[in-house]
Every structure is written in structure tokens, then in C-alpha cells.
């Protein structure tokens, strides 16, 4: 029976088992179907009703004297009859339909009814809540409505900011009335002087919002939907994750499952498919329910505050695509966490911190200023939130989408690897087989010759993310180029050199074996030299091809040229060391050493080399370099597996980097290469003879490396 048909059997059985459980169906289908209509329609309508009621309440105004009371009453009456005469839609104060208007703005334009009282201490009356607002006149209030001639009057409007009636209804309402009165006086005075209105309004400003209704609606949805999707994906996946791990253990079925002839990883993958599927279904049902509620329930107009609501349908397919890695990541994380628990109750306790941990980056993501750049691109959860928001706004940045998908998938893969490692553990399987603490204490670890695939993926995910953050921090630190280079090399050495070494030591993994430190054969050095002396020219050839067919953004190009000029001003030894040799060794030590030896023990040689090559390509954090770096990673991977040593790969990598750097330097190999007919100019391209020569050398290196394998197999036979 093949691995795939076993996994297929497992996930289908788990799905049937779960769907027969009413609790799953309730959590997955009923909650979204009932929750949104209840929550959105109910609460929004309640809010509207309350606002409407508050808008018709009679509000009390306090003034300090009888003349002030008379004047205020007159102004209020005048305004009311003016507003009644001019329909609000056509009047000067009519709001733009698509313009946002809050309760305050509404009160300003359509003031509620007022009663005016004379009170000795108006401030105390407002403070005590006896009146909603008070007016203090600086100077006596005029006897007539208008102050005489060119006099101006000062009115202080006193309100209680902590009281919604005072803040959002009485104060803006009264302020609107007074402003309209003031404006009427201005018009009257201008008329008296035969002056046009432009006399006092020399600059007329009209605001025009050019965002189409779809985008406006997207902006609103982008604030709400991503968070709901995150929460609902987790909520949907929690129950199956617990039921299929801790629940299974509690019911006593896990023992029979583990005793069946199925590798643990297949059990976990089968369960993971179901958890992910249900998380995904839950999110999709939630999305559909939100859409349905907004569309059919007429909530959209409330959300856009009166503007036209159009659901941004074009964004939906991509949002569904984004939901997949999100569900994958949470499915895997929840499965890993729940695999650790021995009972349902214990698992529920473990799940709470996961939820909290997911919400923190989600909140970072929904902050209005957050953009999909820098560390946010690879920050789990936050990147999905920002991207979903961007998609709702109609911004489709495919490079960003690719990064988010890749990084999220990588975290998911690491989590699934951890789940597989925990799931079959004796201490987790049987309560009497020792404390869970033993899973983390070094003295209980079994010494190993290579990391497990799970460990390799986990260290890869951690080192990759930390390296990215530290590089970003360094790039923003404002250091000079020299210090920057040293810093980058130090970060690389720390993250990819010292980090994995410490992990290996802690996990009791044999360092020379895990990092493939054994000396290679002479043929290994020869193959490495052939590759190292040829790949650089092929890379330059490819870069020229790429820049001609897929041109880089001119700003990025200028930045790269500036950086190259700065590098040429520095000592060649420093540049080659920090950008060439140290990365070459450290990256081989980590990628072709630790990660490759871990992955090949779990996945086999070819998938391991491919995954490591892709991880190596991604590690350069540049979409424009991913093809050439992945291809180089592939060649270096072949060297490492064929000679079971990182040294040939390190030599080839160092030669590649060193020659590539020096070939661009006037104090390096540039004069020599130019004398040999190779002018490195993007427009001119690489002469065919160089490309053919490089191709032949490279092919020879690969063939030599591949022959090594055939010789080895024969010896075995």
C-alpha cells in the first residue's frame, strides 16, 4: 500500500468520524450562520435605533442670564424653521452621500430639540449632569439676533466629554446652530456692504473622493474581515485538532492506531489534512456568512456610513487562496500543540496561548498604518492580515502574495514536523511512560547522527525568520557600508553558523555527521572547482537575460548600482570576506550541512536537495535573485549529497561568490576579464563563447559528481 493511499484512507476516515460529531457541525456551520446575522444585524440595528432615539431626545442648555436665554431660544427657533424650509438634500449643509458622517456630524447638521434654562453656576450644572450643555457669553448677549454693526461676540460652549448625550448630540447640535447663525450674519453683512461671498471666502474648497464604492467598501471590509478570518480559522480548527490527538488518546484509540503498520508522519499528515480542511471550511463559511449578512441584511450601508456598498468580488478568489496557507499553518500549529496534551482538558489549556499568540500579530496587521513591507512580509499572521486588507482595496502585489504564501507555508511545514515529532513520543502516548518534561531535557535526548526532518525544518524556519529581522534592523540602523558588511556577515555567522551548531549540541546530534564535515575525495574537490569556476559566468548571463525580459524597477536598480559603487570604494579583502567567503562557508554549513542531512533522513535524497535549494533561494530575500540562487543551491546540493560532505559545496560556493564579486571590481578581475573579451555590461550581454565555456565546465562538474554515485553503488553491490 502506497504512502498516499494510506494517508488518503486516514484523512477520509477522520473526516467522516468528525463530521458525524454534532459538535463539529455546530462549531463549523451553525456558529457562522447564526453568529453574523445575530451579531452584525442585531448590534448594528440596536446601535442605529439608539442613535435615532438619542437624536430625537430633548436636550437641556444652561445659560447665565435671562437675556442670554431669550437670545439662545430665538437662535434655536430661527435655525429650526430655516432647516424645515430647506430640504436637507438640497440645502447648503447637505452632506455628500458618500461622505462619512458620524453621530457628531449628524447632530451638527440636524440638531436635536433643545430647552434653555437660566442657571447660576452653569459649569456645575453640566458637571452634575443637570443640563447637557451650557453657553457662556463673553460680553452681554445682544438684544437683537445680530450683534450691532461690525461687533463680534464670543460664546463658550461647555460640555461633558465623558457623556455621550453631551458630547455627541447636545454640543455638536448647538454648535451647528450657532455656526449657521454666524454664517447667516456674515451673508447679511456682506449684502449690506454689497460684497460677494467670496470676499470672506477667497479660497473655496470642495473635497472629492475618487475611490469607487467598491474600494470604499473594501476599505471597510479590510478592517473587519481579516481578523474574523484569522479567529474563525483557528476556532474551526481547534475542535478537530484536539479531538484527533488528545481526544483520541483519552478515548484509548490512539494505542491501536499507533500499533497499526503506519508511520507516525502519515498518521499526522492524515489528521493534519482534516484539521486544515475543517479550519478552511469554517473560514470559508464565515466569509460567506459575513458576505451574505452584509449583502442581504443591508448592513453594508451602515458599515460605509451611508455610502453605496459594493462587495469587492474580484478580491475573493485570492483571499480564498490566502486562506489555504493560513489554515495549513494553524492546522499544523494546533496539531503540534494538541499532540503534546494527554487529555482534552489539557489540550484546551494549551490552545488558549496559541489563540493569543495569533491575535497579537493580527492586531499589528490591522493597525491602519501597517504596510506589507520589511519584516511584516514574513511576520506570520500579520502578513496575511495586511495582504487581505490590500486585496480588499484592490491592491494586487503578486510578489508580496508569493512571499506571504511561501513564508506561511514554511511555518506550516515546520509546525507539522514538530507535530510528527511529538505525536509518537512515548511520554505523550502513555501517561505512565515518564514526564512530559523529559521531552525538553537534554539528558533524556537520544544521541543521533543527524537531525530529524522535523528539527531541521524547525531550525530552518527560526533561523530564516530571525536572520530576516536582524538584517532588516541592521539595514535601518544607518551604519556606514563597511560596518554594514561586517554586521551582515556577523548575523549570518550567528544565525546560520552558531545557531544550528548550538541546536545540534543541545539536541545531542553528532556535529561532524550532521554538518557533513568529513573530507571529500580528490574528485569531489575537482567537481567543486569545475562548478565554482563556471557558475558565476552563467549567473551573470542569466541576470542579463532577466534584466532584458523582466526589468527591475529603476529605483531598485539605481540603489544596487550605488551600493556597487560604494563597495568598489572598500578594500577588496573586506568585501570578498564578508560578502563572499563567510556566507559561502556559513550557508553551506547550515543549508547543505544541517538542513540537508535532516531532510534527507526523513524525505530521501532528491526531495531534500530540492527543498534545501528552494530554501536557499528564498534565503536571499529577493524575488529578482530567486532563480539563480535556487539553481546554485541545486548544484551545491548535488555536490553535498554525492560526496557526503559540505567541503566541495563550500569550495564551489566560495569560488562562485569570490569570482562574481571580483569580476565587477577594477582592482579585481575586471581588467583581466575585459582583456579576455568579457565586458560586464547589462546591455551588451555575455559573449556566447563565455556562456558555452561556462556551460561545458558546469556540466562537466555535475557529470563528475553524478558519476561518484554510480561508483559508490557498484562498490556496495
Amino acid at each position: 500500500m502506497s504512502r498516499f493511499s494510506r494517508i488518503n484512507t486516514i484523512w477520509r476516515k477522520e473526516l467522516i468520524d468528525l463530521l458525524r460529531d454534532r459538535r463539529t457541525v455546530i462549531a463549523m456551520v451553525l456558529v457562522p450562520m447564526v453568529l453574523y446575522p445575530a451579531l452584525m444585524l442585531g448590534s448594528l440595528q440596536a446601535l442605529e435605533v439608539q442613535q435615532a432615539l438619542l437624536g430625537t431626545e430633548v436636550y437641556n442648555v444652561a445659560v447665565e442670564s435671562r437675556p442670554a436665554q431669550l437670545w439662545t431660544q430665538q437662535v434655536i427657533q430661527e435655525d429650526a424653521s430655516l432647516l424645515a424650509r430647506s430640504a436637507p438634500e438640497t440645502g447648503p449643509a447637505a452632506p455628500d452621500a458618500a461622505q462619512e458622517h458620524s453621530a457628531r456630524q449628524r447632530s451638527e447638521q440636524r440638531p436635536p430639540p433643545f430647552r434653555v434654562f437660566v442657571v447660576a453656576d452653569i459649569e456645575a450644572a453640566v458637571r452634575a449632569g443637570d443640563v447637557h450643555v451650557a453657553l457662556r457669553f463673553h460680553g452681554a448677549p445682544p438684544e437683537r439676533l445680530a450683534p450691532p454693526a461690525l461687533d463680534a461676540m464670543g460664546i463658550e460652549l461647555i460640555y461633558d466629554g465623558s457623556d455621550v448625550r453631551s458630547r455627541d448630540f447636545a454640543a455638536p447640535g448647538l454648535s451647528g446652530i450657532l455656526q449657521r447663525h454666524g454664517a447667516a450674519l456674515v451673508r447679511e453683512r456682506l449684502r449690506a456692504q454689497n460684497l460677494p461671498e467670496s470676499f470672506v471666502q477667497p479660497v473655496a474648497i470642495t473635497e472629492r473622493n475618487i475611490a469607487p464604492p467598491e474600494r470604499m467598501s473594501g476599505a471597510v471590509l479590510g478592517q473587519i474581515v481579516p481578523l474574523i478570518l484569522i479567529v474563525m480559522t483557528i476556532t474551526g480548527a481547534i475542535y478537530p485538532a484536539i479531538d484527533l490527538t488528545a481526544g483520541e488518546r483519552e478515548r484509548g484509540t490512539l494505542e491501536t492506531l499507533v500499533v497499526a503498520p503506519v508511520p507516525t508522519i502519515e498518521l499526522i499528515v492524515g489528521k493534519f489534512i482534516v484539521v486544515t480542511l475543517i479550519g478552511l471550511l469554517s473560514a470559508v463559511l464565515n466569509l460567506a456568512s459575513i458576505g451574505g449578512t452584509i449583502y442581504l441584511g443591508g448592513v453594508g450601508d451602515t458599515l460605509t456610513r451611508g455610502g453605496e456598498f459594493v462587495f469587492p468580488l474580484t478580491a475573493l478568489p485570492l483571499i480564498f487562496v490566502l486562506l489555504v496557507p493560513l489554515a495549513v499553518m494553524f492546522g499544523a500549529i494546533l496539531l503540534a500543540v494538541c499532540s503534546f496534551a494527554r487529555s482534552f482538558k489539557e489540550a484546551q489549556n494549551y490552545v488558549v496561548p496559541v489563540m493569543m499568540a495569533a491575535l497579537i500579530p493580527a492586531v499589528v496587521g490591522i493597525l491602519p498604518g501597517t504596510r506589507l513591507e520589511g519584516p511584516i512580509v514574513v511576520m506570520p499572521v500579520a502578513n496575511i492580515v495586511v495582504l487581505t486588507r490590500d486585496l480588499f482595496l484592490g491592491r494586487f502585489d503578486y510578489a508580496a502574495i508569493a512571499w506571504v504564501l511561501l513564508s506561511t507555508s514554511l511555518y506550516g511545514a515546520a509546525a507539522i514536523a514538530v507535530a510528527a515529532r511529538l505525536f509518537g513520543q512515548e511520554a505523550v502516548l502513555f501517561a505512565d511512560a515518564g514526564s512530559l518534561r523529559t521531552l525538553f531535557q537534554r539528558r533524556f535526548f537520544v544521541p543521533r547522527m543527524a537531525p530529524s526532518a522535523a528539527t531541521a525544518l524547525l531550525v530552518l524556519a527560526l533561523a530564516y525568520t530571525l536572520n530576516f529581522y536582524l538584517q532588516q534592523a541592521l539595514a535601518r540602523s544607518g551604519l556606514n557600508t563597511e560596518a554594514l558588511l561586517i554586521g551582515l556577515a556577523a548575523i549570518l555567522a550567528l544565525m546560520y553558523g552558531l545557531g544550528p551548531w548550538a541546536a545540534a549540541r543541545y539536541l545531542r546530534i553528532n556535529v561532524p555527521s550532521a554538518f557533513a564535515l568529513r573530507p571529500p575525495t580528490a574528485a569531489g574537490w575537482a567537481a567543486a572547482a569545475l562548478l565554482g569556476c563556471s557558475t558565476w559566468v552563467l549567473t551573470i548571463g542569466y541576470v542579463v537575460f532577466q534584466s532584458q525580459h523582466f526589468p527591475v524597477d529603476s529605483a531598485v536598480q539605481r540603489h544596487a548600482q550605488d551600493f556597487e559603487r560604494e563597495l568598489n570604494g572598500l578594500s577588496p579583502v573586506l568585501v570578498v570576506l564578508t560578502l563572499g567567503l563567510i556566507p559561502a562557508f556559513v550557508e553551506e554549513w547550515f543549508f547543505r550541512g544541517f538542513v540537508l542531512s535532516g531532510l534527507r533522513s526523513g524525505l530521501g535524497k532528491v526531495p531534500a536537495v530540492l527543498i534545501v535549494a528552494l530554501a536557499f533561494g528564498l534565503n536571499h530575500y529577493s524575488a529578482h535573485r530567486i532563480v539563480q540562487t535556487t539553481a546554485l543551491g541545486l548544484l551545491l546540493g548535488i555536490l553535498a549529497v554525492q560526496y557526503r560532505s559540505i567541503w566541495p559545496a563550500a569550495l564551489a560556493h566560495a569560488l562562485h561568490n569570490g569570482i562574481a564579486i571580483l569580476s565587477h571590481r577594477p582592482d579585481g578581475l575586471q581588467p583581466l576579464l575585459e582583456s579576455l573579451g568579457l565586458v560586464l555590461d547589462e546591455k551588451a550581454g555575455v559573449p556566447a563563447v563565455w556562456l558555452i565555456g561556462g556551460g561545458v565546465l558546469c556540466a562537466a562538474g555535475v557529470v563528475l559528481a553524478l558519476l561518484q554515485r554510480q561508483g559508490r553503488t557498484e562498490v556496495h553491490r
Partner: protein
Amino acid sequence: MAVPQQPNETAADVAFGVARDAPPALIVADQLSKAFPNPDGTRKLAVRQLSLSVAPGEIYGLLGPNGAGKTTTLRMISGLLQPTEGRVLIDGQDVARFPLAVKRKIGYLTANTGLYARLTPRELLDYFGTLYGMAREARRRRIGELAEYLGMGDFLGLRCGALSTGQRQRTNIARALIADPPVLILDEPTLGLDVLSNRLILRLIQSQAQQGKAVLLSTHALDEIEVLCRRVGLIHRGALLAEGDLDALWQRTGRTRLSEVFLHLVGADEPLLAH
């Protein structure tokens, strides 16, 4: 006394006194030890240097008080736990090196094995049959055979959650036997069963042995052992106190009941107080 080693004899053969002409043992446990780590850094030795072997057609009884290490031993033999020392061979294959191949040959059953409550016995048996790599037609036939033999016809289509204890244990036994494995490891298979279900299961164990299967049975029910087993191993505090034919044990200890033999061997054979 040292056993003279013949040229082709394995170490395990010598250790267990297996004669050259006897069929090779299907279950061989060779010097098994298992230590569980404690949180304080110390280790608890649950099983120490335990060796046993079970030949085809044999029912081997493993006896011992609670916490003696029986379950741990059975879990190590079926590949659920990794021995700290020693090794297990099933049909000549090392459990540690070929875990999947070995698991295919083992039917494993304990008293507290659970069932998937939301699946029917038919679906459950079909699921495990698939995991053991059986083809659809073979599964269908085997489920029919087992259902008939174990009298499961009435409840084959009900959800497992609705079954009685006896029905559940019959389903479990059918699950252990679905792939017709040559080795059966049974940990207290009759615990909590009524007399009728008990009898049915004991008969089944006998018939499986008659078909040439090796059965390793752990139980507290000493009368069951006396009926079923020719050879037994007495385990106490993780170590095998005595092992051999029941007749030889009775002769050696001068006792006629297994419980007395056991109490004698652990040095706790004061008589019960008279009324």
C-alpha cells in the same frame, strides 16, 4: 549451566534453550530493559533484562501483579515502546529496525483499548484492514468471517458508541485479527467481561493457536492461564522470576495452583487467616 553452542545457533536460541529441531520462535524478546525518566532526572526501571520466546502454535502466559512490568513488556514487543536495552524479534525481524514490517505481523489488544465511537464495527474493521494493506475484496471476506465467528452480525452496522462492553471487546478482537497476523499480543483481553463473552474469547485464543499463531497473553486470571497455556513466565518488579512449563513449575515449587506458585516465588505465601 552453560548450553553448548552449535555452529548455526543464534544467541537468542542459546539464551532461551530453544532446541535446534523446534520451529523458530515467532516472538523473541532478548534481554529487554526499559527505564522511564523521572522529572527529577532519576530513572525508574520498569523492566529489567527480560527474555522470553513464543513458538508458533504456542500460548505463552505472562503473569504478575499490578505494576510488575507486564504491559510495558508487551508494549516493547509490539513496537509501541523502545527498549532501553535488548531487542525484540518478530518472525526473525528486529522490531527496532523494521517497525512497519513487524507491526503488520502483530495483532495487539488490551482491555482498555477504545473504539471509534462514531464509526460502526464494519467501518472500523474496514479502516484497519486498509491500514494493514488488505485489498477491498479481502477485507470484505475477512469481516464476514470474523463477524460470523464472533457473533457480530447483530451489531455490525451500529455505531461503536452504542455497543455493550462484550460487543465492544468482540469488535476489538476482530480488529486485532483483521489482517490474520501470525502473532497475537493480548493484554488482559477478558477484563470486565461476562462469562459468556469470556468463554468465547478464550476459545478464540485456543483456535488461533491451533492455526499456528504465537500468542503472548498477559492476565490476572490465573485459571485462564491454567486452561490455555503450557508455558508461563512469572514477572515481578520488572524481572522474570521463573519461566517454563506449568508441570515443571508445579514440580519445582511443590504447589498445585498457579496462585500458590506465584506467592511462593515472591516469598508471600503465608496462608489466609481461618474463620
